């Protein structure tokens, strides 16, 4: 056969190849070496993280997933818009993949950007079952770069997911080693006076809440693309290049504050969607979010990618360097933040008013109006007193350094982020869509979702109801629903809606950004809108693995639609 004929045949076949991308993925037990410890985990194609899947917008993806475990598995394509049967949530979208079975996912790639995939079965995801997805757009990108890297952040823990959950249920503060100690008391008393400190401790102790409740699960090693801080994942560049970094937070429980000392980062994409570029010194990436940033590197030297956990209990570290083996200085972890009374406001509302004093059913209706009003004032007053009392003692902390206000944190919150170099820290308010995907229109209705929990019992719920006891949220195809998240807990929750976009309300109308995860800080109210354009049954949950497992999870049923598929509603 001559070469020309072979070439001719090859080009004839090319179009057939171009319409679809096919991947074979095996789900395996793997050894995960973080540099600090080696643990058995779960990975894809023999490794954790699994392979980076690359697609082009408009093609059809075919992915054969073979389960080599001795338990059920599943793969969820996080952030992808696809038919619900392909979404990979066992018990909602499909039955799951049995041991030894191969399941073929097939769906059109309807978007571009950076996403990821992970198991939605048991605790396989915290155990290592995740990988990255990169989708090239049909049209050219609205920004320029010379090379790009996936920077997948994870938090590998020496304990298995099952064990972590069990320990949290036995003792909710099992993994919290940032609690306030006798030494802290003495230090604070010296600074602020003994009685003020005592009063502060008694106030928090009276509510049985902890200022140090920022991170549920500490003791992990932060990884970048599967490499621990000592193993130092390195991305190479040539001076003068623009490098696109596709940050993906695939950790089970950890928010990271990311910076590259010496470089400014231009955020061009959030959760896979192009945003109007904003240049920052640092950004916080919630669990399951993705941010694409472009850095322009002029000097021929190494730079550290430093991702500190929000509670400062661990970090991930990697390097950008002109050649392999170069390193830059690794910063120290900053001081661990403490929650303030501002972060507790939501909890107090919930506890003091809704629940006990008022008695919801009695309050709601006409008979109570007259009498109840008075009662309510009393309750309010009672609370104000307490709040006033707290101001002196509890807030002393933050009143010294005036924190920049960010509407996505409670005013005076201990979690309000500040850039290490004093520069610009990305806020949700900075995110504006590059090209709005939907026509702007008024929402058809509002659904209030209170994020609730009981820290002491390690129970997490929505509207006070856990997944196993909750009715699905029913939406109608064609609606535009406005979701109101009210965080009544003291923890930050990354809320993830499957199958449809979450349009985060940053007050920019049609320029509000499209996301798949909305992070809701303690004692804040955040709104998002959703064009209900995907029929079927979808999962909706907090993406902190153990919060989802403990019940902060819902099924969403979309009724109606052009092609009502099977499904039991």
């Amino acid at each position, binding site marked *: 056969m001559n070469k020309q004929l072979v070439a001719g045949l090859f080009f004839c076949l090319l179009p057939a190849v171009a319409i679809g991308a096919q991947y074979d993925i095996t789900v395996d037990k793997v050894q995960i070496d973080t540099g600090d410890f080696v643990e058995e985990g779960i990975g894809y194609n023999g490794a954790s993280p699994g392979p980076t899947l690359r697609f082009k917008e408009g093609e059809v993806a075919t992915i054969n997933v073979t389960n080599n475990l001795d338990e*059920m598995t599943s793969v969820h394509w996080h952030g992808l818009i696809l038919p619900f049967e392909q979404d990979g*949530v*066992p*018990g*909602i979208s499909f039955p*799951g993949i049995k041991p030894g079975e191969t399941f073929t996912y097939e769906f059109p790639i309807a978007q571009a950007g950076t996403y990821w995939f992970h198991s*939605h*079965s*048991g*605790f396989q*995801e915290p155990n290592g079952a995740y990988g990255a997805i990169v989708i090239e757009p049909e049209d050219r990108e609205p920004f320029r770069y010379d090379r790009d890297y996936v920077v997948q952040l994870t938090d590998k823990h020496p*304990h298995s997911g099952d064990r972590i*959950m*069990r*320990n949290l*249920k*036995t*003792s909710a503060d*099992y993994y919290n*080693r*940032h*609690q*306030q*100690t*006798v*030494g802290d008391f003495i230090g604070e008393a010296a600074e602020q006076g003994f009685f003020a400190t005592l009063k502060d401790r*008694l106030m928090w*102790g*009276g*509510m*049985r809440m902890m200022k140090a409740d920022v991170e549920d699960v500490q*003791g992990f090693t932060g990884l970048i693309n599967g490499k621990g801080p000592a193993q130092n994942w390195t991305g190479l560049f040539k001076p003068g290049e623009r490098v696109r970094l596709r940050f993906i937070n695939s950790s089970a429980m950890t928010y990271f504050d990311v910076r590259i000392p010496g470089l400014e980062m231009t955020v061009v994409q959030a959760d896979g969607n192009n945003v109007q570029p904003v240049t920052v010194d640092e950004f916080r990436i919630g669990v399951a979010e993705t941010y694409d940033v472009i850095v322009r590197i002029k000097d021929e030297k190494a730079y550290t990618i430093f991702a500190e956990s929000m509670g400062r209990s661990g970090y991930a570290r990697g390097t950008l360097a002109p050649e392999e083996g170069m390193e830059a200085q690794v910063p120290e972890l900053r001081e661990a933040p403490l929650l303030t009374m501002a972060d507790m406001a939501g909890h107090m509302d919930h*506890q003091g008013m809704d629940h006990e004093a008022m008695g919801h059913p009695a309050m709601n209706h006409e008979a109570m109006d007259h009498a109840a009003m008075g009662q309510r004032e009393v309750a309010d007053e009672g609370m104000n007193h307490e709040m006033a009392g707290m101001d002196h003692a509890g807030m002393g902390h933050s009143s010294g350094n005036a924190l920049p206000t960010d509407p996505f944190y409670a005013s005076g919150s201990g979690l309000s982020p500040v850039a290490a170099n004093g520069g610009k820290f990305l806020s949700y308010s900075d995110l504006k869509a590059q090209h709005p995907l939907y026509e702007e229109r008024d929402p058809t209705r509002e659904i209030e979702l209170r994020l609730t929990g*009981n820290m*002491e*019992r390690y*129970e997490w719920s929505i509207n006070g109801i*856990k*997944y*196993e006891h909750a009715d699905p949220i029913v939406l109608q195809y064609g609606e535009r629903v406005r979701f109101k998240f009210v965080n009544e807990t003291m923890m930050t929750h990354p809320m993830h809606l499957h199958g449809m976009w979450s349009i985060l309300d940053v007050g920019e109308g049609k320029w509000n950004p499209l996301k798949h995860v909305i992070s809701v800080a303690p004692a804040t109210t955040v709104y998002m809108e959703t064009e209900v354009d995907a029929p079927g049954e979808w*999962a909706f*949950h907090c993406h902190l*693995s153990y919060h*989802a*497992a*403990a*019940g902060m*999870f819902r099924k969403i049923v979309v009724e109606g639609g052009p092609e009502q598929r099977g499904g039991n509603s």
Partner: protein
Amino acid sequence: MNRHTFTERTLIFILATLILTTPALAEEISGKETQTARTFWGLAAEKLEYRYSDTDEELAYIEGDAFYGTDELKLRWLLEAEWDKAHSAWETLENQFVIQTPVSEFWDAKAGLRVDTPKGQNRRYGVLGLTGLAPQWLEVDTSLFVSDKGDASMDFEVEYELLVTNYWIASASFETRIAFHEDRETGVGEGLNHTETGIRLSYDLAYRSFSPYVGVVHERQYGAAADMTEAEGGDTENWFAVIGARMMF
């Protein structure tokens, strides 16, 4: 006869509760499939220690706890036992089998059966208790017991953990038993029987799974209970040096 009726009733109550709660616990399978978890178990020895008294008495002591269940309902086995080296016998050996359910944000109610099989007289009791977290992080556990002979008594335990550092923990504990009736065969007198006050300093060596400690325990008997002990030639007040470990799996 009276005694049998009571025991049987208690047993029927426990069995009925177990049967009723089993289906709730068996729901797990469907939950596991989709990244949610419903049933949990835990095993702990809050105290596992060797005690040496100021009168050269040597004791081994264990306070253990095992549970299985959901957030709404747990089965618990609580064990408290004291092995006396000199007599090679269980000075006390209490087993409580209870079901436990939340009654408020920080409090659980429990009900079940207590079976005592120490040296000497065995006893069975019905148990009704309240356990939880009081303001200022006081862990409180209190129970009411009614024996198969119709004698009632009450236990009260409170514990506070002070974080010297995030790994060195000083725990102060206090427990007492008050009886409403005398039960001479088991050495229980009417009124305040005894108090046990302890301070232990532990270090979390391997997570919270293994935390060795040293401490001091003061035990004292009162009133009729003390009289009975004195009549037998025992000590009504003891200071112990203790060494042991807290374990949690």
